[in-house]
C-alpha cells in the first residue's frame, strides 16, 4: 500500500516537473516566431503545445538514457524515495532560479537532482560516471556550441543567397518558413524534454517492480501519453504569460535569423535525441539564437547572456545535486514509507506557493537575458 502511494506521489511529482518544464520553456520555442511576426502569439503557443505533444512520441532513446545510464537503479521500493528526492531537487532549483531570475536548465537540474539523491542514498558507486559524463555532460557542452556554429553558418549562407534581393518578399518567405522551423523546434523540444520525465517515471516503476529494468526496459504507453500531455499543457499555460510580456523583452531579429536559429536548434536537438543524449534544450536554442546574431554583427549579441548561460551550466548540476541529496536525507528521516514523500510534497507545495505569491507582489524577475 505504502509503495503504491509512493509511486503515485513520484509520478505526480514527475508530471508536475514536466508541466513546469513546458511552462518554463515556452518562450524558447515560440519567442522567435512571435518576435519576427511569423505567427500570431495565440496561434504560435497553441501550435507549439500540439507539436510538443506529438514530439514526445517520436523516440524513446533519451528516456532510456535517463532510466539506465545516469544512476544505478535498485529494484526496491525504497529507491523510489531516491527518485522522489531527485525530482524535488530539480523542482526546488528551478523554483529558486525562477524566483531570482537566473537562467537555468530544467534538464540539468533533473539529472543533477537524481545524481545527488542516488549519491546520498547509495554512495558514489550509484552514480554511473560514464553515463553522466559521456551522455550528459559532454553533449551538454557540445550541443549549445554546435547550435551556435550551425546557426551562424546557416545565416551566413542564407544572406549570401538572398542578400541582393528585395527585402519584402524575402522576409515574407522566411516568415512562412518559420511555420515549419518553429514547428520542428517544438517537436524537438517535446522529444527531448518529455522523454526525461518518462525516464524518471520508468526509474520509479523499475524500483517498484512494475516494469523490468536494464536492457529489458520498456516504457509503458501510459507513461509516454501522460508525459506528452503534461509538457503540452505546460507549454500552453506558459504561453499566456509569455504573450503578456511579448514586445518589450524579446530580442528583435529578422525573419531569416529566426528561421536559421530555429532550424539550427531543431537540427541539433533532434540529432541528439536520436542517439539518446538528454540535452538542455534551453541552452541549445540560446546557442543557435546567439550564433545567428553573432554571424550578422558581433555587437548585436548580448554577451552577458552567454556568460550567464555558462555560469548556469556550471552551477545547476551541483546545486540540484545538493538539493536532491538533502531532500532524500530529509525524506528518509521519516522512514521508507509514504510519510516522508507526503510531508516533503506538502512542504514543497507550500514553499512554491509562498514563492509565487512573493514574486507576484514584486513583479517578475528581470533576467540578464531580458534586460
Amino acid at each position, binding site marked *: 500500500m505504502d509503495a503504491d502511494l509512493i509511486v503515485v506521489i513520484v509520478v505526480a511529482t514527475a508530471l508536475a516537473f514536466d508541466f513546469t518544464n513546458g511552462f518554463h520553456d515556452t518562450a524558447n520555442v515560440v519567442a522567435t516566431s512571435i518576435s519576427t511576426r511569423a505567427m500570431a502569439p495565440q496561434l504560435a503557443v497553441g501550435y507549439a503545445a500540439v507539436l510538443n505533444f506529438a514530439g514526445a512520441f517520436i523516440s524513446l532513446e533519451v528516456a532510456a538514457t535517463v532510466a539506465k545510464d545516469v544512476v544505478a537503479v535498485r529494484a526496491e521500493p525504497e529507491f523510489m524515495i531516491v527518485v522522489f528526492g531527485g525530482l524535488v531537487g530539480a523542482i526546488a532549483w528551478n523554483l529558486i532560479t525562477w524566483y531570482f531570475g537566473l537562467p537555468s536548465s530544467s534538464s540539468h537540474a533533473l539529472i543533477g537532482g537524481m545524481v545527488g539523491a542516488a549519491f546520498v542514498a547509495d554512495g558514489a558507486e550509484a552514480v554511473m560516471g560514464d553515463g553522466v559524463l559521456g551522455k550528459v555532460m559532454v553533449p551538454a557542452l557540445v550541443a549549445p556550441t554546435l547550435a551556435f556554429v550551425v546557426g551562424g553558418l546557416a545565416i551566413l549562407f542564407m544572406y549570401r543567397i*538572398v542578400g541582393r534581393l528585395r527585402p519584402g518578399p*524575402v522576409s515574407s518567405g522566411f516568415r512562412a518558413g518559420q511555420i515549419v522551423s518553429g514547428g520542428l523546434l517544438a517537436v524537438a523540444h517535446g522529444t527531448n524534454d518529455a522523454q526525461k520525465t518518462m525516464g524518471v517515471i520508468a526509474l520509479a516503476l523499475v524500483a517498484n517492480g512494475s516494469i523490468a529494468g536494464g536492457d529489458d526496459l520498456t516504457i509503458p504507453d501510459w507513461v509516454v501519453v501522460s508525459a506528452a500531455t503534461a509538457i503540452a499543457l505546460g507549454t500552453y499555460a506558459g504561453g499566456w504569460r509569455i504573450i503578456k510580456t511579448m514586445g518589450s523583452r524579446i530580442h528583435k531579429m529578422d525573419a531569416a535569423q529566426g528561421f536559421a536559429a530555429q532550424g539550427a536548434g531543431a537540427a541539433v536537438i533532434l540529432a541528439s535525441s536520436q542517439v539518446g543524449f538528454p540535452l538542455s534544450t534551453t541552452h541549445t536554442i540560446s546557442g543557435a539564437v546567439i550564433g545567428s546574431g553573432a554571424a550578422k554583427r558581433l555587437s548585436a549579441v548580448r554577451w552577458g547572456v552567454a556568460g550567464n548561460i555558462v555560469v548556469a551550466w556550471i552551477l545547476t548540476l551541483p546545486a540540484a545535486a545538493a538539493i536532491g541529496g538533502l531532500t532524500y536525507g530529509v525524506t528518509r528521516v521519516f522512514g521508507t514509507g509514504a510519510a516522508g514523500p507526503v510531508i516533503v510534497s506538502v512542504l514543497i507545495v507550500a514553499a512554491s506557493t509562498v514563492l509565487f505569491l512573493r514574486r507576484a507582489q514584486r513583479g517578475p524577475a528581470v533576467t540578464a537575458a531580458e534586460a
Partner: protein
Amino acid sequence: MISPLAAVDWDALLQVVWVSLLTGIGVTAVFAVAIYGATRAVDLSRDGRAAEAGLFGAVSVVALLVVGGAVIFGIVAMTDK
C-alpha cells in the same frame, strides 16, 4: 579509473555533429534557394521574361520539395528507430 575520454560515445557525438551541420545548414540554405527562385521568378515575370521566370519558379519548387522531403525523412528516420 576510466579515462573521461573513454566514457564519451564518440560515434554518437560525431553523428550528432555531422547530422546537425548537414541538416541545419543544408536545409536552411536550400530553403533560401527556394525563396531566391520564387522572388526572381516574380520579378522576371513582371518584366515579361516568362521563360526565365519559369526556370526560377521550377528551381524554387524543387528546392521546396527537397526541404519538405528532408523534414519528412528526418521524422520518419527517428520514428523508425
